[in-house]
């Protein structure tokens, strides 16, 4: 205790605390001790905050894992992941159609949404005047604040009939899901991409213009390549958002656990099946839902690992 007290005083020659002129060294020691207690309890408090998050992840993983692992043992990893029939009430636990659905809707949404979002980011960061930016950016951010059930409503009431007219079906399916998800991931991808562009050193913009490059040449030959690690990060995070999205997707995809025959045929995803089945599932069916949760968990872990290794890579290059 005495040692750490001395440390405190050594570490902070200008440390706060009342230093009345003429006060003795005893007063100084008292102040330092209370200061030390405050500091160390704050440190403990923040450590506790951080630990709660980590514990949360660990506990959830443990819980999901314990409840779900049995399905892998029972059905077999390959039959579970790649079995093509999902008829849980009749003992068929192949989730391939659901994995396919999750990835199909996500990848399509990324193909539509990522260029839109990156274009938005480039416009906001490089092209728009400050006034236009001050209007447009909050509008884009607002997209992130809309509850996903509202997106679902919009998709169901507005988009679905249009798709139905064009395709002849009911309009539940991949196309409707793509359009809705594409809009939903724009704010994520554009905010992070814009950050990446704006954090580039302003010197390279000037340098490019001074070399006689046009604005467009500067954007696509210098700025976008320089920000590419950040932009790829943004797309991966957008992918995480898309693959985990449940409510809006659930409302527009028709929910049939099959690999759809066309882009306007009903299908299901991992998340929508968990939500819909959880209410009534029991026994192996319930275990299978937890098994699907494990798969979702693994997918997002891979995505996070990708982002982390990319930003390390980015640091090495920059």
């Amino acid at each position: 205790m005495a040692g750490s007290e001395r440390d405190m005083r050594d570490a902070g020659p200008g440390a706060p605390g009342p230093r009345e002129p003429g006060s003795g060294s005893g007063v100084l020691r008292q102040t330092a001790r209370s200061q030390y207690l405050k500091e160390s309890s704050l440190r403990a408090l923040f450590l506790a905050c951080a630990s709660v998050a980590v514990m949360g992840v660990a506990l959830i993983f443990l819980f999901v894992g314990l409840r779900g692992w049995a399905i892998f043992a029972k059905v077999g990893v390959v039959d579970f992941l790649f079995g093509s029939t999902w008829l849980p009430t009749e003992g068929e636990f192949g989730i391939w159609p659901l994995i396919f659905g999750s990835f199909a809707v996500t990848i399509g949404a990324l193909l539509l949404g990522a260029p839109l979002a990156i274009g938005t980011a480039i416009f906001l960061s490089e092209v728009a005047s400050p006034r236009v930016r001050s209007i447009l950016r909050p509008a884009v951010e607002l997209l992130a604040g809309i509850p996903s059930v509202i997106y679902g409503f919009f998709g169901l009431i507005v988009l679905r009939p249009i798709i139905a007219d064009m395709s002849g079906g009911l309009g539940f399916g991949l196309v409707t899901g793509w359009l809705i998800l594409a809009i939903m991931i724009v704010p994520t991808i554009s905010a992070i991409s814009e950050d990446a562009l704006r954090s580039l050193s302003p010197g390279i913009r000037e340098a490019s213009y001074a070399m006689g490059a046009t604005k467009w040449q500067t954007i696509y030959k210098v700025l976008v390549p320089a920000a590419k690690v950040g932009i790829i990060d943004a797309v991966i995070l957008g992918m995480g958002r898309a693959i985990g999205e449940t409510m809006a997707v659930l409302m527009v995809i028709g929910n049939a656990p099959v690999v759809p025959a066309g882009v306007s045929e009903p299908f299901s995803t991992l998340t929508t099946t968990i939500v819909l089945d959880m209410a009534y599932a029991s026994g192996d069916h319930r275990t299978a839902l937890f098994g699907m949760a494990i798969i979702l968990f693994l997918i997002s872990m891979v995505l996070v690992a990708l982002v982390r290794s990319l930003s390390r890579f980015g640091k090495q290059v920059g």
Partner: protein
Amino acid sequence: MIESRLHGGAAHGSDEVEAADKLSVTDLDFYYGDFQALAGVTVGVKERATTAFIGPSGCGKSTFLRCFNRMNDLIPGTRLTGRITLDGEDIYAPGVDPVDLRRRVGMIFQQPNPFPMSIYDNVAYGPRLHGVKKKARLDDIVQQSLERANVWREVKDILGRGGLTLSGGQQQRLCIARVLAVRPDVLLMDEPCSAIDPTSVQKIEDLMAELESEITIVIVTHNMQQAARVSQFTAFFLQEETNEPAELVEYGRTAELFTSPEDKRTEDYITGRFG
């Protein structure tokens, strides 16, 4: 009045025959929004010679330099009146493409600003913009430019490495190579040596001496010794009152301006009495 002073005294290294004005400025006023930064500047920049702009911080010499390649166009709310010509052509005339102007008037900045790409790609950037595609031709240009920028020996084996991995001084010479690769007529240097190590400063001053015979150089510098070493002509700028525009106080051959300045304010500045 300026012309009359130009004929006495020999500046170092240059011949007695006066070169033509490469850049000529007439009655230039410059504004940032409502604030007038420069007033009534009239000056000529000689071809194939080095001209230094000196003066205390904030006296508008960098602003003035950036008028020559219209970099100030990129800052919203700036405007200027008066006339600047390059080889007799008004560079602010309607219809003049600033992009094309900047290909002829290159610029080096205070902070080295290589692109986050390889050394090779940095130097090849300009030529590629202008349509050079052949690998052999690009290789030639890259080597030549790096040689002229006095940095080839240090980087010739690491051309594929990122430009940002070099030291600050090497980065600045890489930037010079990048500009030289498009063969500009004029090289504007905005305090190119204020952020780098002394060895590199020496190398940059050496390369300036070598380039002088083929290119017109305008350098803004805080360092009067540097101005005296590298330039044949010097212009002294001064902002006398805060919030008043800066003016060109005196312009002349460097040797004369530093030894027998005509204006009392120039004398005070170069003898270190202010600024």
